[in-house]
């Protein structure tokens, strides 16, 4: 039994309340019809199995029932962080010591602004 911090409930809850749902950040191909069988097969069935830092999708099944992400070390089982859907992890394979939260937040804001610009561009 251990505790997991739910970023939506904003508190630590018993492991029993959660379910793991596999690798996180798997984007569905935007145009499935244009995928090759290999691309579609990769998307559906193939997952990473890294030694060390891994980003996983979890759900707070008995609780708020929201999906969120966990960065976990597959060697030590240590949970390095939990973060909401749409957010970027601080701890990655390139930055196992963790990047400052401000850097990640700034990148996200920049990426968000870029996305809005592109959407507006598409409308115009």
């Amino acid at each position: 039994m251990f505790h997991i911090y739910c970023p939506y409930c904003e508190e630590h809850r018993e492991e029993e309340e959660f379910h793991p749902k596999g690798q996180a950040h798997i984007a569905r191909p935007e145009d499935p019809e244009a995928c090759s069988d290999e691309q579609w097969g990769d998307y559906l069935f193939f997952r990473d199995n890294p030694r060390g830092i891994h980003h996983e999708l979890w759900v707070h099944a008995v609780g708020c029932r929201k999906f969120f992400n966990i960065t976990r070390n597959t060697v030590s089982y240590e949970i390095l962080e939990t973060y909401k859907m749409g957010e970027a992890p601080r701890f990655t394979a390139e930055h196992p010591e963790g990047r400052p939260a401000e850097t990640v937040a700034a990148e996200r804001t920049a990426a968000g602004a870029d996305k809005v610009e592109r959407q507006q561009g598409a409308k115009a």
Partner: protein
Amino acid sequence: MSEQTASWFNVYNVRPETEVPTESPLAWSCHHSGRPSVSEKSRVVLRERAMLGHLILRGGAIMLDEAVREVLGFGLPGRPNTLTRDESGERSIQWLSPDEWLVIVPGGEEFDLEGKLREALGDAHDSSDNHYAIVNVSGGQTLLELEGECARELLMKSTPYDVHPDAFPVGKGVTTIFAKASLILRRPTEDRWELVLRRSFADYLYRWILDAGREYAIGVDA
């Protein structure tokens, strides 16, 4: 598309107006497992508040907060895992998830309340950013009250959630595990705990609570 979907719902009064007998989710359980009476030895007292009105609200917090303030006179809880109540304590709103709240009102008020909320939210569904849902779940769950000096002891045997007053102050409410089932556990006042059970778990949980409360001479207040 959005113009069409906006009108694709029907609102029904699920409370029969005819003389059909209504039964709480615990009717059979009380008949089958009995109702130990309350004595001066009872250090836990259980009471069912059957047939209350339960509504689930889903949507954006700001939009729903405005609507419930207008209709009920008090707002949504601002923090996760908390609840707000009106002055009488008979009407409450509990945070269940970032876009979901449970409203509990005296039985019979829920149908009228749903209509008024839909009216207050009126134009909200015109915009795809402001969709919402209201579901009357009154028939699907029931509320139990737990009181007495050993109520917290009983909870500690039943749920992994920390019910110490430091971790569970008055005004808190969570959805959590209870005796391998799940329920909503809340603490509206200093001495009273409330358990919101699903109908399908009600009999199991009633029998669990009677068993767990035996050592405290649990009594069921009719």
